[in-house]
């Protein structure tokens, strides 16, 4: 790997300011075409589960969101479109009525009806089913299916984001009859959905083969067959693309972009990630319980340098806890500041006595995590912080995450599941949430009120005030909102989805034909 990296550095130097050139623009000059009827894609890890309610891992949902349909669908443009539901409206503050698509069949021939929709959503939070998405629909009180093509969902309190929740994980519709008759394990091994591809075969760690669903209601996809291959190492994954063995690769690291963009037959497409890369903070543990210390740490991070040097410009500096592109993102806030002098001042004011501050970093849990941790540690040492970087395995991270036992800071990549702060900062930082290490009475009150309000003006005000409190108390240290880059053959027309959904439906994936 050393060799390719060095090659690349040379290449990058030659290209000069290439990082600032939009990488997606290069493709059109040499228009390329293909007659291929098979799409081959490669991602960095294998699929672990096909049952959509038992995984939220990005390697799994790239496939499962195409095997299954949701009632609503979030396209790469960030907007909600009809899926298996054709229309939806509020009957009253807590009652949503969905009109379902008629004539849709599951891959095994069973007709899709409201019974399947009711079963699927109830399955997510059924304690006996023990799914991985049990908390997604916690606002739902009851679901009724008055006729085969109507679904009425009653929420406990007003839930303005229900249609958005239904578009993401947990919301995939599975066939009631089939799941009940074969059981969860067989369903996972031979999944059946309504999506644009149907399950063909899967050889673990080798490839998954998906066949086009010829009768798909949204139109048959561009190809007859889609093969998803796991290629864990970056260099071979890129080599497979450059050689034309695969059509699309995911997880293209920022320092490899020039290599793909500089090749005659390939290009780079990226989407600004719908979320942030943050250092989670255990705010219960001194000295991190002191907001002044956290402010100092934040001020000492030169995020511009991280974006420029480690990410080759493929990211932006966040300005708060709301990701750019989300509802209620406040464009008037300045990017998080870098001011080492002020940082030193605040450390002094905080009475910091050289206590150890830990970063428990992972390696490649999020892109560039270890490199960023080391860079940040160096910046903190410069202002006199006694920082220790420790490397932990994924499984150790998972355990610490569950037990809430991180010693100081750790990498996290909060995804905005709903295109709204409720699906990101409130989902993760609320009382009892997965990152509950910090409490503020006013913040909690606002978050709860905003969740259950259908008044967008009120919600805007609440998130504005919550952002202000967040920036004073810093329960996370936001570091970067990165681009997620893909490498593509030039004949592939494909728009990446900011939320890691990998959309192969007809509206989003085309192969340019001769």
């Amino acid at each position: 790997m050393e060799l390719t990296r060095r090659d690349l550095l040379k290449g990058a130097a030659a290209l000069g300011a290439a990082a600032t050139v939009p990488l997606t623009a290069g493709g059109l000059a040499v228009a390329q075409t293909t007659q291929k009827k098979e799409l081959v894609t490669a991602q960095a890890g294998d699929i672990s589960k096909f049952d959509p309610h038992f995984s939220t891992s990005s390697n799994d949902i790239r496939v499962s969101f195409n095997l299954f349909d949701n009632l609503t669908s979030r396209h790469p443009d960030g907007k909600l479109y009809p899926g298996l539901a054709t229309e939806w409206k509020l009957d009253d503050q807590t009652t949503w009525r969905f009109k379902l698509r008629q004539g849709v069949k599951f891959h095994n021939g069973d007709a899709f009806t409201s019974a399947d929709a009711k079963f699927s959503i109830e399955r997510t939070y059924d304690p006996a089913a023990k799914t991985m998405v049990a908390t997604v629909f916690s606002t739902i009180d009851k679901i009724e299916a008055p006729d085969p093509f109507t679904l009425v969902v009653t929420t406990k309190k007003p839930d303005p984001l229900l249609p958005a929740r239904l578009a993401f994980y947990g919301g995939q519709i599975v066939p009631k009859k089939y799941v009940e008759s074969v059981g969860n394990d067989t369903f996972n091994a031979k999944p059946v959905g309504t999506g644009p591809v149907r399950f063909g075969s899967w050889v673990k760690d080798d490839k998954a083969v998906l066949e086009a669903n010829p009768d798909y209601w949204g139109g048959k996809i561009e190809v007859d067959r889609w093969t998803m291959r796991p290629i864990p190492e970056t260099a071979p994954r890129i080599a497979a693309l450059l050689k034309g063995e695969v059509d699309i690769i995911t997880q293209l690291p920022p320092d490899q972009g020039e290599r793909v963009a500089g090749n005659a037959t390939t290009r780079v497409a990226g989407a600004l990630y719908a979320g942030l890369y943050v250092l989670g903070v255990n705010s219960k543990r001194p000295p991190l319980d002191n907001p002044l210390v956290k402010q100092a740490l934040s001020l000492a991070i030169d995020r511009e340098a991280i974006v420029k040097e480690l990410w080759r410009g493929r990211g932006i500096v966040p300005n708060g806890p709301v990701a750019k592109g989300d509802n209620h993102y406040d464009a008037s806030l300045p990017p998080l500041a870098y001011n080492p002098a002020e940082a030193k001042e605040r450390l002094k004011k905080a009475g910091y006595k050289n206590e150890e501050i830990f970063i428990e970093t992972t390696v490649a849990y999020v892109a560039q995590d270890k490199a960023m941790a080391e860079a940040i540690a160096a910046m903190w040492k410069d202002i006199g912080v006694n920082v220790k970087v420790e490397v932990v395995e994924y499984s150790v991270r998972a355990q610490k995450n569950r037990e809430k036992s991180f010693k100081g800071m750790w990498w996290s990549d909060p995804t905005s599941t709903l295109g709204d702060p409720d699906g990101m900062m409130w989902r993760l930082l609320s009382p009892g949430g997965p990152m509950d290490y910090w409490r503020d009475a006013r913040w909690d009150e606002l978050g709860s009120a905003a969740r259950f309000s259908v008044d967008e003006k009120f919600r805007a005000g609440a998130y504005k005030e919550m952002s202000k409190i967040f920036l004073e108390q810093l329960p996370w240290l936001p570091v970067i909102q990165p681009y997620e880059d893909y490498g593509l053959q030039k004949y592939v027309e494909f728009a990446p989805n900011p939320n890691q959904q990998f959309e192969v439906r007809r509206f989003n994936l085309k192969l340019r034909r001769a």
Partner: protein
Amino acid sequence: MRGFVPFLGHRLFRALIALWLVSTVVFVVMRLSGDPVPLLLPPDAPHSEIMRVRRELGLDKPLPVQYVIFLSNLAHGDFGRSIHFREPAFNVVRGYLAATLELGLTAFLLAALIAVPIGLFSAMRRNTLVDHAAMGLALIGQSAPTFFLGILFILLLSLKADLFPTSGRGDWRNLVLPALTLGAFTMASIARLTRSAVLEVLGADYIRTARAKGVAEMWVVAKHTLKNAAIPIVTITGLQFGTLLGGAVVTETVFSWPGIGRLAVQSIYNRDYAVVQCTVFLAALMFVVINFFVDLIYGVLDPRIRAG
């Protein structure tokens, strides 16, 4: 063939002890590595749920009890159930075993078939350009890290020269680069050892005698030299199979080859006890079987060994 049966019995007994020790070490180490249950459940699962899953998996029992159950199941050929894949561990591993055997045996044969002639040739042409070139290559093969060689091969032989696919499992063309990568270290070791073993034999009195009585050079090499140099070569070849299995982890990752090396590493991360135990046991079994045959070949090559 007097004494051959006790010789066999003794070797077999030692092989069983080795397998038992390996299984025990893996059992203990996996349990030291931590609890798999937190990785199986969503982050907000309640404590009662964690305890229920622990009970279901038998992880609530004391360690000695778990160990006895493990050994008795093992004796019945039952490796337990994979907690990650939710099927019998052996079924999971079996799916990967063919790929590893295909790659491992090809690398092994490739290494032996290329390395022995090179070592022999180097020895016969000692201190010539051919010898220096061959041993220089061997030095590179022995010292270059596997992932480096693998990626180098991909860049040069696949991407630039367009001779082979970059990665994945398929026909024989897919096999060449990973087998070369995996076999490189073994090849180098065998070549170097062959050279020194042959050199040692070439200086022996019986070779001089053979030449003196006018035996053709080809026969001197084939009959007198190779057979006598064979013991250390066979030994290192057998032992190198272990190195090969170790190297498979990296090679399989670089070439996205669906073998047990990769499975073992992922299963360690998942703390999938049963799969790790099954993989390591089968790998140890392969190693033991190969070395058992090495021992048998000793007996054939040198009657003094089976007598002693």
